[in-house]
């Protein structure tokens, strides 16, 4: 067994924010750079790794568990683009069972079977559905799993609420050796105004923006082919953005405890921005009318 330490990273984000897209592109960029990577999807939808495997769904750890009395974790590991090991925790159908417990079980299974050591991984990247609604979803940020957490957020208030919730989770576990925050991956950044909002949020919560990722048609086109941007359009500007992001994450060492906003602060903060937003829209309306 090699002496190297596997770097474990968790990427959280509200459903639909582009978290899986971002994660898969980071994995792909790291794999391209020659690292051994595992991407571990922690979302009951089990579609985190689709674009690493030509849009194909893979059986999840929990699928196996529901069929067999005994699970060999290897049976839930599939090779994807660039030799990335793809794993999906999976989970129950909506409205039944306990998805959180499912994540605990899946993570525990791989740990007990010493898969990370066996595969001699450089990176394990957990792609986690991100509202931290119960204990199970917080498993990747507890001690002994991921060391660094990044959150994917747009400037949309609901996405920021989810990020703030995650920060609360990190604050809680930070006293007990849990993961710390690496920063925010600012997604769908198309206007300066978006940047201002997310920058302000980062400043207020004492964290940093790791990378601004613009919304891009290239990403959509790649996804339609079931591919990451790194794979489908390696020479595109967007691919450069993802490579830069991957590099920053690879080089990242010092994570911090964020300062989550309390409900009142968050409300006031978003109200302040909402006023500005309305003001800007009015201004542009006036400008249109004047024109």
């Amino acid at each position, binding site marked *: 067994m090699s002496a190297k330490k596997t770097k474990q990273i968790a990427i959280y984000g509200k459903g639909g924010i582009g978290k899986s897209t971002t994660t898969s592109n980071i994995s792909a960029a790291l794999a391209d750079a020659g690292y051994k990577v595992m991407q571990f999807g922690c979302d009951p939808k089990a579609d985190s790794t689709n674009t690493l495997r030509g849009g194909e769904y893979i059986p999840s750890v*929990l699928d196996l*568990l*529901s069929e067999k009395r005994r699970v060999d974790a290897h049976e839930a590991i599939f090779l994807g683009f660039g030799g990335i090991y793809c794993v999906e925790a999976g989970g*129950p*159908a909506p*409205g*039944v*069972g*306990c998805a959180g*417990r499912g994540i605990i079980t899946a993570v525990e299974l791989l740990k007990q079977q010493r898969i990370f050591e066996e595969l001699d991984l450089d990176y394990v990247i957990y792609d986690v559905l991100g509202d931290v609604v119960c204990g199970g979803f917080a498993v990747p940020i507890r001690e002994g799993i991921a060391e660094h957490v990044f959150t994917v957020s747009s400037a949309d208030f609901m996405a920021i609420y989810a990020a703030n919730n995650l920060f609360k989770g990190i604050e809680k576990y930070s006293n007990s050796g849990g993961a710390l925050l690496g920063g925010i991956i600012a997604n769908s950044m198309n206007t300066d105004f978006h940047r201002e909002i997310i920058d302000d949020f980062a400043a207020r919560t004492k964290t940093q923006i790791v990378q601004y990722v613009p919304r891009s048609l290239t990403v959509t086109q790649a996804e339609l082919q079931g591919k990451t941007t790194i794979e489908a359009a390696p020479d595109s500007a967007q691919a450069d953005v993802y490579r830069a992001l991957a590099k920053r994450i690879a080089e990242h060492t010092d994570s911090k405890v964020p300062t989550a906003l309390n409900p009142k602060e968050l409300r006031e903060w978003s109200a302040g921005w909402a006023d500005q937003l309305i003001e800007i829209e009015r201004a542009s309306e006036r400008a249109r009318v004047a024109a």
Partner: protein
Amino acid sequence: MVVALKERGDGLPGAAEQSGPIEQLRYACSMGAMQTAAAIPRVIPITHCGPGCSDKQHNALTAANGYQGGGWGGGGVAPSSNATQREVIFGGTDRLEELIEATLKILDADLFVVVTGCIPDLVGDDVGSVVRGFQSRGAPVVYAETGGFRGNNFTGHEIVARAIIDQFVGAYDGEREPGLVNLWSLLPYQNTFWRGDLGEIKRLLEGIGLRVNLLFGPDSGGIAEWKAIPRAQFNLVLSPWLGLETAAHLQEKYGQPFLHIPLIPVGAKAAGEVLREIAAFAGVSERAEAFIAAEERTYYTYIEAFSEFYSQYRWGLPARFAIAADAAYALALSKFAVRQLGLLPARLIVTDNPPGEYRDAIAAEFRALDHDTEGTVEFLEDSYLIHQQIRSAAFGHKPPLILGSTWERDLAKELKGVLMEIAFPASYEVVLTRSNVGYRGAITLLERIYSTTVSRTA
């Protein structure tokens, strides 16, 4: 401005709402009410829970507690879904459906009662929809959500009773039968002596001219009695609090009145008073007087004989007692000890965690132990605290009498006292029909207290 429909209370949670650690427990969890179902002749509980839940609850209640035996359809007979990872993560309703289906093929019972444990209640299994499917096919199955975190087996007992009433007994708009009474009293299996006690209570009620839906135990007529619940003239809640919720529900559902008497009578004094009160309510006073007179003749003949021992025994009888038991037994036995045995209370502890709204009334009952004796009751469930309280009580220079459970064995040795195991868990007792209530039970109780006392130094 946001206006709530109801203002939030600003007081601290009361003692009843707090729940600290418990050492050496004195009840089972809500799902322990599987034995409430099993206490009804030819009724079988189906436990939807983890693999060890059923075993733990029934072992505690039926084995380590008087070695009563789990009953015909309880204990190890009860089907259990034995939930695994699969049922936790993906939900357990399919498994429950499969289990009920198979149960109906294998077991032959008048009624099946599905009780749930923590797992289905946490992962949100829709147990109701599964069971309603069977009900619509005419299968005799009801369900009660009794996940262990919801409370203890006292709470679970009322949930199960209500489930049977609402889902099996059903609507009724016929006549009521004068003289027929539904009895809600001791908690089956939890109370080590419930079978004998319910039998004696039935004998007393029949003695004053009533007919009884006893509902539980070998002297009950099983589900026919449950079906007859709405026909009864009234509900008798013979306990400090357990059964009140059920009686209130029946009042609402069937317009049926209830009589609440907190004191389960032990000994002639209490029996006479309680029977007279019931008789007056039911309108059977005349017959009651004749019965009471006859019972007292026998009772006092024995007491007279006993007095030769009581008044002349030279080697020390206890003068003060401590009791730690559920509210029903704590009250019943304390009153008997004070009023008929001439003992003084040193420590009175109620261990069944009565809901907060009943506690003042229970405390008032204890304050009025006798016209000249006031008792102060404490509500404790943690045996470590209970033992501290008993240890610090003033027993005078006589050997303390401790009415408690097996947990008090070491304490009784330490205090050089006399221990009577009258509460859960009574693991050094084998109990079948023995009773401590009414006229006959009181004599048995007295025999046991003093047999234990005289053999203390044997």
